[in-house]
């Protein structure tokens, strides 16, 4: 895929890499790495890979860090272009707006996944070297769950960027109140949260009861729900972009 076949993707990716938001994303994605270092200092070579990295992924990365990474990227991918009005350079073109939305979401997914997965991998490899436990299931779980979470949240936050102007504030409230608190502590709401399906996939890759994900959905169900969410939000984003007034 070169810059001529997917110009919006490349432009958006470059926009991320040249902007400030990428630094915030890198800091968020580095949190598991930081926790790993703290564990190394505290426990030395006795550390438990799944105890620190596996558990923090369930408790912190999936419900909070990954949605925040997707929020920052998706909101700057379209939200910033709406507010500074550069969006019109891209939409006043003889190109499908469906393709435009897809390229925008893809840019958020690729950049968000690359950063979160590479830093997650770095944390895993350091802890693996220190502990001598190269837990293959754990890194597969981290890679798959990171990708799924970034994909689902990026599509959802892209739609949110097209619907409201204060997308960062609304997205932050959604992540912290809905995904991190309500869906975690109110059992009935978990089926309405992205975190539940991502955690279900992650837990079943690890196949470890001690990981602490109760009432999991089946992997197939989780993948279907996440795919449906992505398709619906992309279609609604396209419809919204078709109809919205660009000032």
């Amino acid at each position, binding site marked *: 895929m070169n810059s001529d076949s997917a*110009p919006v993707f490349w432009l958006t990716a470059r926009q991320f890499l040249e902007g400030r938001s990428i630094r915030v994303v890198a800091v968020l994605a580095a949190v598991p790495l930081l926790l790993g270092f703290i564990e190394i200092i505290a426990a030395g070579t006795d550390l438990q890979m799944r105890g620190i990295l596996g558990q923090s992924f369930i408790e912190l990365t999936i419900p909070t860090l990954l949605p925040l990474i997707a929020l920052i990227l998706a909101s700057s991918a379209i939200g910033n272009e709406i507010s500074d009005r550069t969006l*019109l350079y891209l939409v006043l073109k003889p*190109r499908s707006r469906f393709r435009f939305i897809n390229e925008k979401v893809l840019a958020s997914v690729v950049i968000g996944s690359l950063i979160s997965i590479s830093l997650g991998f770095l944390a895993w490899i350091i802890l693996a070297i220190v502990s001598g436990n190269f837990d293959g299931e754990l890194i597969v779980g981290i890679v798959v769950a990171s990708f799924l979470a970034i994909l689902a949240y990026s599509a959802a936050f892209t739609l949110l960027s097209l619907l409201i102007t204060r997308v960062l504030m609304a997205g932050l409230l959604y992540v912290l109140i809905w995904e991190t608190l309500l869906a975690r502590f109110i059992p009935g709401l978990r089926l309405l949260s992205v975190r539940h399906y991502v955690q279900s996939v992650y837990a079943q890759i690890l196949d470890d009861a001690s990981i602490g994900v109760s009432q999991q959905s089946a992997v197939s169900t989780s993948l279907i729900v996440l795919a449906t969410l992505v398709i619906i939000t992309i279609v609604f984003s396209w419809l919204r972009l*078709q109809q919205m007034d*660009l000032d």
Partner: protein
Amino acid sequence: MKTVTEPAQIKDQQPAAVQTPGRGASVQVNNVSKWFGDVVAVSQVSFGVGPGVTALLGPNGSGKTTMLKMMAGLTGPSTGTITINDTVVRMHSDIYKSIGMVPEQEAVYPFLTGYEFVRLNAVMQNCAELEPSIIRAIDLVEMRDAANRRVGEYSKGMRQRIKMAAALVHDPQVIFMDEPLSGLDPRQRVRTIELIRELGNQGRVVIVSSHLLHEVQRFAEQVLVIVNGHLAASGSFRAIREKIDEHARQTLISCTSPRRMGASLLELDLAISVRIDPTRDHAIVVESNDVRELYKSIPRVAQTLDVRVFEVRSLDDSLASVFSYVTEAVR
């Protein structure tokens, strides 16, 4: 070359809705209104525009930018239709093969070079010969020397020119420009005015919005005047200018002895009426049919009367007031 197809005369005090859009025009606006909540931005506007340069004139906030955005399909009309070459603009992305737009806003991707920005537009327009199209567009706005610098380092005028190159890279037949001379230095202004005229002479439909009357007369053959969201007048620039000049203009003069100054101006037939400005001390409002002569005479009269003049200011500078002469029915 006839540009504004119908009506080709000033529509003094004529309701906009009764206009008949012209035949064979490239851009047709039919009974278009646009409102944002309770605010009516554009009200029942109809006109047709053909090849050549047409200026969309109006004071700030008159609705001309909204009109331009509706014509470019960026904003949908609340009622009515807008077509370009018989195709409804809104929701038909293929139409953008033949449209180029230079928006008013300054924001351009600061991390791209001028070349990259024009290239991005060329790629998205599916230009057949990419490199020659890019070079031609950059040369057209005389930006070759700065093409490899980042847009973030450009001056306002340079950004304006690179936006123009991006809008022209695919050789569009219909071009919308929103305040294209804004931010340009005098030399660039001259060149841009030449370019706009050249584009019009090539048979393209060029619609340029501006709030500066003196600017418009340098490139536009036809004008559409929008005041308070209504099409107040349309036709040749000369006819509208003459209509405006027929009316008396108001000038505020602030000086040490306004009564003596006013009396003297009346005596010399430089003013048709003089009144004391109740909102200010030592100021009069002079109504004159020949403003140029009045302005020339004020220093001489002041010297003769030994009066010190603090301020001379036209009260008709804004287009809103100038065009109120020809658009009283609309207001």
